[in-house]
Structures are given as structure tokens and as C-alpha cells.
């Protein structure tokens, strides 16, 4: 499935990996590209089916599918994934700064990229991201890993249970909920990224982030609870902060609200100032 008619799919190589990329326009587009980095177990299309086309209405949008190392290459470190972002940006938007939007695991990579490649990042959005994995996360990761290792039929339901907010799950009909669980069973293999997630620590990179940053926390997030987003807000000099009433799966639960927050920030980061807590207006 493609995002929109006209989106160009391509392949970019790093020295170690082959990465699929998506571009809503082309390198001649004068606008600052917005680079979307997906989360654990996702792909550009599975996580940004909503956000990519929404943003593409007024921005040039680039996305990529992160590639995990082959078994023989061992476990990936942060650089393994950062390299892939560097390669896609160099190939599709050379000699130009970009805006980076990272979600979940993608926010970890985005933070590392922004800390290491300050000169390339014009603005940064970190959605449901974190700096260092803590024992609450490791506990969930451990349950996931055991269910996965045992080939448990309970795994998809466990994933849905932890990914979505209670309010979202309650608003589904029984068949819709069943569909959600069924689709959780069919995603890409996430075992490598789940191992990576156990020991994330990008605190040194986070301290180096210079770009204006929007940090988005999700109030009902059990996978990356909002205290992580608040710590990112505390750790990034030029950061502003906003919370969305959602579970971790905010890209599915509240895509329009996410878009409503991200779009004006990308268009004009100076609209808000460092340290601002953005309060959502009542509707």
C-alpha cells in the first residue's frame, strides 16, 4: 500500500544496510523536508499511514523503513539506525537541513541523530520517546520476550493491551477489537528492536540537541509513560512540551491531534519559546 499517489519509493544503502525510503515530492522541492522515523515493529506505512499524508498536504515528507542487522551481524547499536537516517537524508535531500519527527523507538533514533548531527537538523519532534530505558519498561519488555520465546498465543492481545489507551479500546466494537488483535499478530518481526529497547541510553546525545524541539508525551502510555517525555523536555535546551490524551499508539489513536500540534511547530518553531508547556485549547 502506498501513502498517496505520487509518493516515490526508493532504496538507499548504508555501508551495512539497505533501506527503503519514501518521498512525497522530489529533491528539487525547495521546502525543508520533514523526515518521519517509525517505532518498534513498525514501518513507515504501518505507523505513518495517517500522519504522512496529513503532513504531505503542506510539507515535503520523507520516511524510511528501518532495517535490522542480519543475525550474523550481531546486535544493533544506536549508530546502526542513525546511519540509516544519515544515508536517507544524504540521498534524498543533500546539503540541506531537515526537520525530524521521531515516534517511540524512532524518537530515540531521532534524538541521537539530532545530538550527533546538529548541523543537519532544523527542528525536531519527539513523540512518545525516551532517553534511557528504565525498569518499568524492562518489566514489560521481559513479559513480551517470554511470550515471544514461548510462541504464546497471548502475545498479540498483550501488545494491543499495552499499546492503546483504555478509552480507545473501549470505543471499539467487538469485531474492531478482534481485528486490532489479529493485526498485531501480523506485523514485522520486532525481536531485534525489542532487545535494543531494553538498554537504550541516549542521554549524551540528548544533551547535545540544539534544534528547536517539540516533545510530545502521551498521558495513557504504558510502554513509554509520559515521565520519559517530561525528562526529554527537561534535558533539551530549546524544547517545548505538550501532552496528548492517548496511549502509546498515538499515531493510530489521535493522528489528527498530533498533526494539529506538529504542523504549526514545523511551519514556525519560533511561535513558541523554549520551556513552553503548550496547553491544548478546549474544543
Amino acid at each position, binding site marked *: *500500500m502506498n501513502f498517496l499517489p505520487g509518493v516515490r519509493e526508493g532504496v538507499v544503502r548504508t555501508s551495512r544496510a539497505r533501506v527503503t525510503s519514501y518521498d512525497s515530492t522530489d529533491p528539487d522541492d525547495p521546502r525543508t523536508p520533514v523526515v518521519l522515523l517509525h517505532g518498534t515493529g513498525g514501518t513507515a506505512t504501518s505507523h505513518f499511514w*495517517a500522519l504522512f*499524508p496529513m503532513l504531505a498536504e503542506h510539507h515535503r515528507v520523507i520516511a524510511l523503513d528501518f532495517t535490522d542487522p542480519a543475525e550474523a551481524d550481531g546486535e544493533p547499536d544506536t549508530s546502526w539506525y542513525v546511519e540509516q537516517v544519515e544515508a536517507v537524508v544524504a540521498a534524498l535531500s543533500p546539503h540541506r537541513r531537515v526537520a525530524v519527527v521521531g515516534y517511540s523507538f524512532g524518537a530515540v533514533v531521532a534524538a541521537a541523530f539530532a545530538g550527533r548531527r546538529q548541523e543537519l537538523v532544523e527542528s525536531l519532534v519527539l513523540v512518545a520517546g525516551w532517553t534511557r530505558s528504565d525498569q518499568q519498561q524492562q518489566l514489560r519488555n521481559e513479559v513480551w520476550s517470554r511470550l515471544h520465546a514461548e510462541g504464546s498465543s497471548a502475545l498479540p492481545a498483550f501488545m494491543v493491551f499495552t499499546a492503546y489507551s483504555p478509552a480507545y479500546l473501549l470505543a471499539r466494537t467487538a469485531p474492531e477489537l478482534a481485528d486490532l488483535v489479529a493485526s498485531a499478530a501480523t506485523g514485522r518481526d520486532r525481536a531485534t528492536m525489542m532487545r535494543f529497547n531494553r538498554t537504550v541510553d541516549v542521554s549524551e546525545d540528548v544533551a547535545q540537541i540544539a534544534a528547536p524541539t517539540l516533545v510530545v508525551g502521551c498521558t495513557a502510555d504504558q510502554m513509554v509513560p509520559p515521565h520519559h517525555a517530561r525528562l526529554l523536555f527537561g534535558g533539551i535546551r530549546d524544547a517545548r512540551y505538550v501532552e496528548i490524551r492517548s496511549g502509546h499508539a498515538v499515531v493510530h489513536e489521535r493522528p*489528527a*491531534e498530533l498533526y494539529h500540534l506538529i504542523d504549526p511547530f514545523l511551519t514556525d518553531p519560533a511561535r513558541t519559546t523554549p520551556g513552553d508547556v503548550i496547553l491544548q485549547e478546549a474544543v
Partner: protein
Amino acid sequence: MSTIVSPPVPAAGNETVLSDTDVLIVGTGFSGLAIGTRLARQGRHSFALVDRASSVGGTWRDNTYPGAACDIPSHLYSFSFRPSTSWSHVYGRQPQILDYLERTAVEEGLLPHTFLDSEMLDAVWDEQAQRWDVRTSRGRHLATTLVTACGHLSDPAIPDLEGLDTFTGEIFHSARWNHDVDLVGKRIGVVGTGASAIQIVPELADLAESLTVFQRSAPYIVPRKDRAYSEAEKTMFGRLPETAQQLRAGLFWDSEARFPQRLGVPAFLAQMKKAARDHLAAQVADADLRDRLTPAYELGCKRILLSNTYYPALTQPHVRLETSGIARMTETGVVARDGSEIALDVLVVATGFEATDLPFAHRIRGRDGRLLSDHWAEGGRTVASTSVAGFPNLFVMQGPNTGLGAGSIVYIIESQAEYVSGAVDFIVDRESAIEPTVEAEDAYVADLDLRSQGTVWLSEGCRSWYRHPVSGRLSALWPDYMHRYRAENGAFDPAPYEILGSGRTVAAGQAR
């Protein structure tokens, strides 16, 4: 504050001046009550409301057909400044919504400002006095600022059927329901398959001896996720108001997330089409009927309807779906285009409203006597979907480019009320008349035309009341997200206006 003369009921055409205020509001539906409440709470400006009917409530007063209910969840389809905890169901029923509006009028103290049974006959901008002179069926009203809050789904559209006059049975429009007609055991026809019709049909199927539904185009219908709120929930909403507010916010963002369907984004279209297709397949077993109920246009071109009872009604043996079209009417019923004759006792016309050529525009004259309907001959032209070049101190609520394909119109109405109230402050503070420039209006219209490109409403094969019949422009709808309407048009900005200089000054409290 108010300068309303307490009204002795004068004869029609009477020249008696019944009110002389800063603001005159025409209409007492959601729009009129929104701006009325704002002005009343603010307490700065004098105002009056007029309505052609004998009670308030607008479209929710007029549409009393069986099964009438809202298609937007009531916790969203209600004023943010008057949250109600007592909605019985997710989707409020017409009597509840009307009650909500009537209570708004009473509790916000609007009734003493309201002139009922007062149809606006014409409104003329008086250049000399720099004010609006409005004639109604009960007398005159003078006001510095005129706000039309007439709605765009107010005046029934009746199809031009050959032989309509010769039919000897009962005939009425869905928005003018004749409750005196006993429908039990009757042979009933319903013309139309829009939002009203699909609510009416299941109700009539329970009463009629036979029911024929005349369909021109099959609508997309998705499940109506309705349910009753428990007493515990309603009390919770009252005791913990933030729970109701969170529910409302969730409903709002759900609606916003449907807008990309209208931009034709494949993933969004596929999701909704699947929901509609699965719903039809689950409810209609007969392949031929299913075929005739399958829409022939792109999803979102016309309103997407919500019903769990419409398809099942059509599968009953005494209910028939007629798709060949109506050739003509006779004394005793309908002759279909395929030649079949359908005998009827009652014909319900559920064919919608005059939404593109807004009737009130034929009654408003701006500078140099220009008629608003002439200015809008090729579709509505405005600034901020609210004001019009050549029509000083006129603000149109729920006029051109305010309708929504996905979302709650009350959100737009509140945004407009905020805008209009800012404009009224400006007009009163400056003691001057204001009018948007022609350039600003051209720019606004051009920008909307640009945004409309690529939407499903302008796609090939899409014909609907959202488009103007002459120009083809998307004149009824706001072609973007709701939140963007408020961000762009939710606060008054004098920049696109010309200030016409100081006219007469109305001292607050001055009576005539």
C-alpha cells in the same frame, strides 16, 4: 442595556420600530443562540433576535419527523460553554436537542430579547444612518450590525415532479412533518435517501401497510455506534466535568481524523469504504438489493450516513426500493420510469434543503441597494466565511463555506460567534461601519477554491448540494480541518476591512 420596546403585536407590514439595538440577530437556532448568549454574557452591547417561527430552536424545532436524531455525538454537538450531562444516548434525539436549545434561550436570558413570529421580509443598509433597517412580518428593527443566523438547512427543497398538484393523498416535506396524518396501515412513499430519509424509513416501515422508497442515488451507510448512557455515567459527567470534557475532545479528534477521507487519501478511504461495504453485506443478504444499495460515487462526495436500522427495514416484504426514478405523479400515486404504478395514500418528501441559493440572501440589500443573492449568483463570496464586500456591518453565520463533511458544525458556529463578537466590539468602539474590501474577498475565495481542488467534492462524477449549480464552486463547505477554521477564522482581525467612517452613534440604553 436592552432597548427593546415591549412588543404589542402589530399587524403585518407594520412600520412600528420594535427594536433599535447594536446588533440584530436573525434566527434562533444553534447560531443565533450562540451569538446571542455571547452578547448577553458580555453585557456590553444591546441586541435583539427575530425568528419567523413561534418558538426557538431552528432546524431542531422544524425537523420533528419520526426518528429524528443527530448524526454527530451530542457531547460534541452541543455548546462548549453549556455542557450537558443528561444526553440519554451517544446521539441525541431531536426532542432532547430542541429542549437543550430552548433551555439555552431561557437560562441565558435571551427570550426577553427575542421577537417570535417575525419573518425577515427585507433588510436594507441605510447609508445615511449607517445602520440596518430590517422589516419583519411584525414590524421594523433597526441595528448597527446585522447577523444572519438562518442556517443553510432551513428551507425545504421540493422536487419539481410532474403532476405533483394532482395527487389527492397527503404530501409533506420531512422538515414540515404533518403529525395530524395517521400513518398506521397506510401506503406510504418516501422520496429521497439522504440523512433525513434513512432515519424516517425504519420508523414508517413499522407503521405502514406498504412503504416505497424512491432512491436517486444510494448513500454510503456505516454502523451507528449508538448506546444509552447509564445513570452512573451521567452523574459521573456532572461530578467530574473533566470526564465529559475528555469525551468531547476525543470525539472532536476522531472527527478531525476523518477529514483526509475528503482529500482522497487512499488509506482513509479504504478504511471507511470497508466499513460501509461490510455493513451492507452483513445486513442485506439479497444480491440484487445489495447491488442497488451500492453507491456509484466516491465515498465522501455526499454525506456518509449512520444507521443500523435502514438496511434491515428495506429487507422487509412490505418495503420496496424503487430505483428507476419517478416519471410523474397522478391522483392516486406515482408512476415510475419503468412504467410501474405505485398507489400511495401518503408521500413524504425527504429531499433536503435549499442549501446553495440561500433564501435569506434574496432579502438583504447592501450598499447601493445591491442584493446579496446577486452578489452570490455564482456561489457565496465572503471574507472569513462570515462577512461580505458591499455589505457593511453584516455578518453571516452558517452561510457559504462553513459546512462540514466530517465534524460538528457547533464548533464552527462557536468560532463564528467569537469572530462576530470581536467585530461588534470593534464597530461599537470605533463608532464606525466596516466592510471587507473586494480584494480581501477575492483573495479569500481564491484561497478556498485552491483548497477545494483535489477534494472528493470536486472529483469527477460527484454531484451534491455542496457545489454551486451555476459555477460548480464548492460553496457550501469549509474544505479543510475544523481546527484550521478556528485557527484562521476564529478571531476578528480588522486587516481585511475598510473602515467606513463614523456614522450615527447609538448610546447604550437609548430607546426610540
